[in-house]
């Protein structure tokens, strides 16, 4: 990281040694600034809101989005995208809650996670082996998964659905009233993803494939293996996110993760990962997820009708992405 800029006059602000290029190279700083601005906006909208309880709530709600964004980051770094994450999240959560009474807490979690891995592997086979475009492939598997879950939900109408205790605690409990338990899931995942992307051979390959797939093949890399594992991990992470969500709401609902698709992609874009791959990282996506969660909170506080909130949400996300694209061009 370069030293701090000398900002004397407007010329040096935008010149080669000035503030703007420094910001371009250190986009994480920009993001954190944005986050602070948004938190400030919350306090402005309703003074006194920002306190430890609010912080705790925000982190609680940000964690599932953050975990979805982790998988999405890993996939987008290879130049792909995963539109099936919300169907997988909902599906895994639903599957888990409906099986708890039949096979017990532990096994129901395992089956839920397995669904994520299976869908991820199907995505991987399509994208990695058959070279199908990720957008289309994951669109298809998303629809497929959603449909399967809907049909399944009608079959098991009779039986009850129960959220396993451990999931409920993780999804909505707090440690010492302040620290949400789901952070204990998010933090290790974040650490693994960040360190993996930076310091593991697999991480290097993810970036390399996103940058130039052909170069990887010429260097002897069997690209399909990496992509297969990558999409499987994304599916697994989506399943985990879904479980945390249902742990929070404590009721299995087919629309559980519905509103998370755009935010999961937006967090990653805002966070600095290029949609074409080869550049970016999860650190930015974390801040992106936090920004979007705070934004959501702001809109909830602002007393306006649902449609206006929706318009504002879409508009602000677009504005953030636009600013970000300009900055990193």
């Amino acid at each position: 990281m370069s030293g701090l800029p000398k900002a004397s006059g407007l010329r040096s602000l935008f010149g080669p040694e000035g503030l703007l290029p420094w910001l371009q190279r250190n986009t994480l700083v920009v993001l954190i600034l944005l986050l602070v601005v948004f938190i400030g906006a919350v306090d402005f909208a309703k003074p006194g809101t920002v306190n430890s309880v609010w912080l705790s709530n925000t982190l609680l709600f940000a964690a599932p989005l953050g975990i979805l964004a982790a998988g999405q980051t890993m996939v987008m770094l290879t130049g792909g995208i995963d539109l099936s994450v919300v169907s997988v999240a909902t599906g895994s959560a639903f599957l888990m809650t409906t099986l708890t009474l039949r096979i017990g807490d532990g096994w129901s979690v395992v089956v839920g996670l397995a669904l994520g891995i299976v869908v991820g592997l199907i995505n991987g086979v399509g994208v990695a082996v058959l070279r199908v475009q990720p957008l289309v492939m994951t669109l298809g598997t998303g629809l497929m998964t959603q449909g399967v879950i809907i049909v399944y939900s009608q079959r098991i109408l009779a039986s009850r659905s129960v959220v396993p205790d451990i999931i409920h605690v993780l999804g909505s409990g707090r440690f010492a009233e302040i620290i949400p338990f789901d952070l204990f899931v998010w933090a290790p995942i974040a650490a693994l993803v960040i360190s993996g992307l930076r310091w593991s051979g697999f991480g290097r390959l993810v970036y390399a494939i996103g940058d130039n797939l052909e170069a990887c093949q010429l260097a002897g890399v069997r690209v399909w293996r990496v992509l297969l594992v990558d999409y499987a991990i994304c599916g697994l992470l989506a399943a985990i996110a879904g479980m945390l969500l249902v742990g929070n709401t404590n009721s299995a609902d087919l629309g559980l993760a519905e509103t998370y698709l755009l935010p999961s992609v937006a967090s990653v874009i805002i966070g600095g990962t290029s949609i074409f791959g080869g550049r970016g990282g999860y650190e930015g996506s974390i801040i992106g997820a936090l920004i979007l969660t705070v934004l959501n909170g702001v809109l909830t506080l602002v007393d306006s009708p649902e449609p206006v909130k929706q318009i504002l949400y879409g508009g602000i996300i677009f504005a953030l992405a636009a600013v970000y694209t300009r900055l990193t061009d």
Partner: protein
Amino acid sequence: MNSAANLLEARDIAKRFGSVVALRSASLSVRPGEVHALMGANGAGKSTLVKILTGVFPPDRGTIAINDAGRSFRSPAEARAAGIVSVYQDPALVPDLTVADNMRLADVASSAVRRWLEALGVENLRFDAFVRDLPYPILRLIDLARALAPDPLILLLDEITAALPADLSERVFQVVRHWRQRGHSVIFISHRMAEVAALCDRATVLRDGVVVGVTDIAPGSEERIVSLMLGQSTTTAGARDAAAAGAALVSTDGTPALEVRGLRCGHWVNDVSFSLRGGEVLGVAALEGQGQQELFDCIAGVRRFDSGEIFAGGKALTLRHPADAIAGGLVLVPANRLQALLQQRSIRENVALPAFRDISRWGPIPLRRERERVAAAVRRLRIDTRAESELRRLSGGNQQKVVIARWLANGFETLLCFDATRGIDIGTKHQIYALVRELAASGSAVLLFTSELTEIPLACDRAIVLFGGRIVDEIPASAADEGTLLRAAHGLGSPVEPKRTTLEPEEQPIPDARAAMARPGLAERARGLVARYPTLFGMPALLIAFLAATVVIHPNFDSFDAQSLAMAALPLAFAAAAQALIVISGGIDLSIGSVMAVSNVLAARTMEYAGFGQALGLAVLILCAGALVGAINGLLVVVSRVPDVIVTLSTGFIWGGVALLILEKPGGGAPDTFLALATGTLFTPWLSNSIILLAASLAIVWIPLRRSKLGLRIYAVGSDRTAAFRSGVNVARSRFLAYVFGGLFSSIGGLGLTMTTGIGSPRSGVLYTLSGLAAVVIGGVSLVGGRGGIFGPVVAAFVLTLIPADLIFMNIDPNFGQVIQGTLIVLVVMLGGFFTLARSRK
């Protein structure tokens, strides 16, 4: 020719990109009737100057004057209007359009192009052939002919002979000389000194963004030009001495490092056998397209071969993937560095890449060991690491060194160097050859192909000559002067002057061009039609199959069912049409459903108490609103440079919110007479008005659009944006207009929703975005863009609507419909991917 005024006068041109200065101050004067060479090493600023002269981007400073009139260009189209046209290394032809359409796109008369093509020796070219089906040298000539046709004042040729066989190159030179005689001028860029010496009158030399000299071309001026480019005096003799200093240490033990026996691959490689020992540098000499590329690809594991064996260190290799070759110690340095390098990553990541190919290496990276190994390789190659953070900041020569550094760090037995010095400045070239000799001296084996025959003796111990996919000669380095090599490379027996000779066109193998030029028979034409438009035949077949199945499942299928089906499919058909149009332009729109909802609720809200006439008027207004919404989408996509996925996901939210603002809950209505436009039956109970409405809309909007210039531009932009831009298309405007028309179709779909449901519902559009996309994919339109039509997706929409209907008839849970829809998409694309893969394996 001695007129005082210069045809082109560029003064003091400067250009920087961020902190990188590409041109400091470059001036260029071209006289009328002159062939002027523009010389310079990689990174000297040549290509930047060329792009400024031809309008790709404006200079930061400086003036350009043509015939003493000051000009400034903001686009290639403007430069062309002023009389400057360039022919780049990549033909500016859109692959998914025909030759004729490409000419139309650039506003060039096909007849003029045809005449120039004949002058260039290409006769009877089928102008209705798709560009993607034609061989590369032919495309370059078409590009050239298209540049010549509008009679420009100045022709800019960038490495025009790079991929041309000798006889075609000679024709190009004849055309250039003819051009000069007419008082027009040519700016000629080439790394081949012999060509420059033979063709050009003067040369301007660039170095580090400044002009360092302008010299007349006379015998002996080559040395002066080279020293100007390098900034110091270097002779090829000196380089040869430096190279010879690394004495060849050919290993005398039995096993060759690489042995190839009886290799055959398609029609390119015909029974090649040779062997290569450790410590030896074996050169491959060949003219363009004699099979050397395929030979190297086979040995490197990039391409499957038909028969033959490859041995590395005595062990037979099964090569299915480059990893297999690398495991055998065979590593490839390709001609095109872009193929091998990660542009956005650092030097270190580029060099270390092969280390992770084994799953066992996916874990934590041994960072210190990596750093040391990379540093050692970088040091040995003397790579300029000033701009370490991103590889793309390095010059071409340094980038190529990184490729070699990668293999130094990874370890290898045999280095396969394929034209590794193509397009690289002379200084770096000599460094690379010196390195090759060093590697051989330390025991490695090197197989080296270079397109510059003079360079063979610089690095090689002996050379094999490839002609028509066969080895026709083997020459020791001492005898490998250019004349001997050229003679052998032409497959000729008699001595030949070391200058390019004109050969009869029949002697050069251009098999594919023959096929493109012959007139096909009727059966072949029919087959070609089906192959070219598979969806035109496939989709209706699929629909008929589904309809047949429906009738079988539900024998009581009556006209009422037919009407219901048509009405249910109508909105989806329009959603599919909208999406198809945008996808063809190379974009995507995830807000289509929301736009439909807006249209739907607007209609239901305003038409509730209206009469038929009023409703029609309102409908027209709503269509305009739809186009406006599409325009906003398009504007945001084009101006903000945010990827269209993100833009339209966001605007989908916005339009959805707008729909909710207009109508909070399902309600409203429209006059029955208006509804009847979709629900009624004008002619027969079997033909719902919906079908008539659909057909009419498509006929009025799509068919004229498809045939128009704008339609051509939309396809061009989706197929190859760069080629379209260079052909003079305003890319931004074309993409924008695609979104406008998409918005129009979406709003018709929304009106269709109003007509078929009778009410407005703000959340009505939710399913149509993704279902429309599904219809597009199943309907055979590639998401890549540039191909396909609206017909397939519209028919697919009907198929997709039939599925839940059939399920209901079969008393199966209609929710399975979604499962089937998703599965259908997955199956269709996976099958498509599978077939493409199988075809490419051939």
